[in-house]
């Protein structure tokens, strides 16, 4: 590699600044220096260029790459679907087809009526079934309610009977002494321990 020089002033570099000086007479042209500098570079590019350039045979190979059709690749038919609006059937007449004759109108009407009747019928059946279910539920709920009520009444009766029996037992007492004792009337109350209040000594 040639040594690199830093040049601050292009014209000043070629001479000392004096017109008739030696250096001014034999100026070193920039081109020569450049040529010298570039020589190794040129050779380098040439060498690399020959290597990097693709050969003609390679280019031809690339160009001849085979293009497969959809049939050859075996792609499923679904991938080929086009929207309904876009697809235009060939051989079919353009425009709308009107229904104005009685026969076709009757056919359409029969189809529509049958469909509607079916729908309404199914609706009715469904409604009836729902109604039956509701009715059954209502009956069940009523039965349950009745049962609960009966149970409640029974319990109430039992409680009443119990009370009556207790009353009957009390009647058996001699002179009603025992019952009076239980009830705790003031006059007949047996005297227990007398309650006392005492103050703590200082």
């Amino acid at each position: 590699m040639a040594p690199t020089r830093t040049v601050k002033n292009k014209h000043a570099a070629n001479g000392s600044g004096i017109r008739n000086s030696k250096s001014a007479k034999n100026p070193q042209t920039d081109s020569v220096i450049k040529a010298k500098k570039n020589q190794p570079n040129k050779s380098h590019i040439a060498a690399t260029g020959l290597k990097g350039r693709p050969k003609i045979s390679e280019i031809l190979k690339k160009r001849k790459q085979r293009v497969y059709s959809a049939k050859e690749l075996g792609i499923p038919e679904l991938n080929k679907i086009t929207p309904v609006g876009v697809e235009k059937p060939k051989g079919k007449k353009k425009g709308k087809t009107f229904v104005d004759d009685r026969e076709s109108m009757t056919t359409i009407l029969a189809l529509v009526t049958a469909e509607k009747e079916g729908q309404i019928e199914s609706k009715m059946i469904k409604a009836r079934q729902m109604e039956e279910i509701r009715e059954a539920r209502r009956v069940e709920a009523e039965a349950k309610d009745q049962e609960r009520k009966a149970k409640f009444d029974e319990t109430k009766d039992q409680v009443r009977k119990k009370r009556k029996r207790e009353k009957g037992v009390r009647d058996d007492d001699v002179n009603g002494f025992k019952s009076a004792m239980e009830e705790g009337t003031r006059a007949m109350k047996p005297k227990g321990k007398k309650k006392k209040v005492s103050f703590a000594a200082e």
Partner: protein
Amino acid sequence: MRPLTEPETKVVFDKLANYATDLKTLITPLEDGDRYVFRLNHSRVYYVRLSIANMATSITRDALLSLGTCLGKLTKTGKFRLHITALPILAEHARHKVWVKENGAQPFLYGSNVVKAHVGRWSEDCPEHSGCVVYSMADVPLGFGVTARSTAEARRLDPTGIVVFRQADCGEYLRDEDTLFAG
């Protein structure tokens, strides 16, 4: 003005069948050899005599305002909407009927739904969400709607409960005067 295409005819019949039975009589030939046909003009469907429809061909589309009985409008999405003008045809072949009392007629004609308290009587075995024609107690058709409840369910409903959802009523002749036939 043009006849309906097949899908259009199907949609129209489908809607009519919600409210009316025996639609065959609509297209049966008349005694004088004439018959009724369906015609489309400005997305409105007309039910008209064939002889009148043929005569109307001499009038330009823009100049033709209306002919025969306007049944309704075909929307841009391909659905069909019945107008109140179709009421005479529906009332003639009504599948289910609801009669409203005197006190219920006015609220209905002003555009509200039919509540149970206003119902005088109704046809039996009517499932929910099916088309029905609303009559006054004097058998004058007032409009049509869709049942909110089946007859059995409606019996258990409270008086303020909605029985019929209004679809169209005769009050529209005044309320929608500007848009009913054009626009």
